[in-house]
């Protein structure tokens, strides 16, 4: 069970109109990309946190935990943008390495802050949509936007397979662990290889079963959601 999915179904806004949520998110994404204003970005950031944690009722500590995954990437990228190297001293703060300066400049600080706030606003916006909207409602939005059926079909199937995949992987891993498959390094390598192999085979079998079920349910190539 994916925690993101759990909240998507159980939060207080799960049944609210997905189109409204989608439009709010698109507008805020538009604003952060077009208008280069730190304060507006921060306002969107705060607003989205408010919507996700207070309006939708997703526990704050869990929310921070989920956010921390993209955040770690964000921080690493910001650091690389922040630091620049030059022969002349144009820095606010720098260290000397032979005849080069390594440090941060006024421009890089401004740029980084703008980028940071923009990314924060965008991430919290998309997370708001993802965390508060069940997949079925999202598909309703995609249908309204006239996304091609084959893309919607892909989304539904990929989503379904994420669960099959995680479930199978967990079962195999637990069995292996119970049989002392991960006690030392050599052992672990072997077990991991075996896990990947059996996972692959199982998924193929699951796929076959799924096709049978779809046939029994008279699937004709289009996932209908009903509006």
């Amino acid at each position, binding site marked *: 069970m994916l925690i993101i999915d759990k909240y998507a179904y159980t939060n207080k806004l799960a049944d609210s109109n997905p189109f409204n949520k989608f439009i709010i998110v698109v507008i805020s994404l538009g604003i952060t990309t077009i208008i280069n204003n730190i304060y507006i970005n921060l306002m969107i950031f705060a607003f989205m946190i408010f919507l996700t944690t207070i309006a939708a009722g997703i526990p704050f500590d869990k929310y921070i935990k989920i956010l921390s995954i993209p955040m770690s990437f964000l921080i690493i990228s910001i650091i690389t943008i922040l630091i620049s190297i030059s022969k002349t001293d144009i820095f606010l703060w720098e260290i000397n390495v032979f005849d080069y300066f390594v440090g941060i400049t006024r421009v890089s600080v401004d740029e980084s802050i703008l980028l940071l706030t923009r990314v924060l606003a965008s991430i919290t916006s998309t997370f708001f949509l993802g965390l508060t909207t*069940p997949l079925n409602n999202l598909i309703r939005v995609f249908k309204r936007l006239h996304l091609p059926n084959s893309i919607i079909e892909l989304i539904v199937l990929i989503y379904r397979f994420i669960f099959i995949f995680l479930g199978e992987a967990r079962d195999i891993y637990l069995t292996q662990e119970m049989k002392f498959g991960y006690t030392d390094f050599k052992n672990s390598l072997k077990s991991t290889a075996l896990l990947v192999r059996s996972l692959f085979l199982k998924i193929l079998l699951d796929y076959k079963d799924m096709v049978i*079920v779809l*046939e029994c349910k*008279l699937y004709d190539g289009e996932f209908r959601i009903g509006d």
Partner: protein
Amino acid sequence: MIKVESLEFKYEDGTIALKNINIDLDKGRVVGVIGANGSGKSTLFLNILAILKPSKGVIKYNGEPIKYDKKSLREYRKEVTMVFQDPDKQLFYSKVYDDMAFVLRNLHFSEEEIEKRIHVILEKVKATDLEQKPTHFLSYGQKKRISIGGALIMDSKVLLLDEPTSGLDPKMSKEVKHIIKELSYEKKLVVSSHDMDFIYECCDYIYVISNGRVLGEGKPEEVFLKANILKEAGLDKPWLVKIHENLKLPLYRNEEDLLKIRY
């Protein structure tokens, strides 16, 4: 209704899973198919559903051999459908409501009609409280109930149930028994199981399968008294038959009859 005539089925790897099977589903309202693990029950069901195509022999529906082109299959599967052994594989959508609606939407039912039907069916399988739940939150027994509901909703004429009670606790088993009893007034049911007590109480005609062959057939009170057939098939007797033979009690068809008379 459905007749299986000298059917043989061979898997791609050469396993002959079914040999010379003759089955007539008109012989009972609830037909039981019993056999040990690997005897070929699921393979037989998939053949009857026309998912697998027999290597030899025919399956007739209303006197006509099944046709295997796309259009005829679609028509056929409106009339004949199945509840699979593993409910996880049968549930497709993430919300109970949408999962049940799936087949109806494929048949272009109106949303009002769909809603009406779903409510009736959920009532029938005692799962009204699950309507808005995501399917991956459900317990095994709840999933089983929803997958039965998902098959019922089509209103088919024939329903195959592969191991409807496996993995269920006694209370859930009893409920499934009850559901089957009610359904038997509306449509033809075919049930496979290795739960002999369940089969004995639910079915009115039984086929015993072993190693892909039909070993014996008949009414439950007859079949379960034939010790040699059950032994060869690797099956046990229902407890009601055991107490009949060992305690010299009359042969009761179900627990309630026994209790009514004894106390």
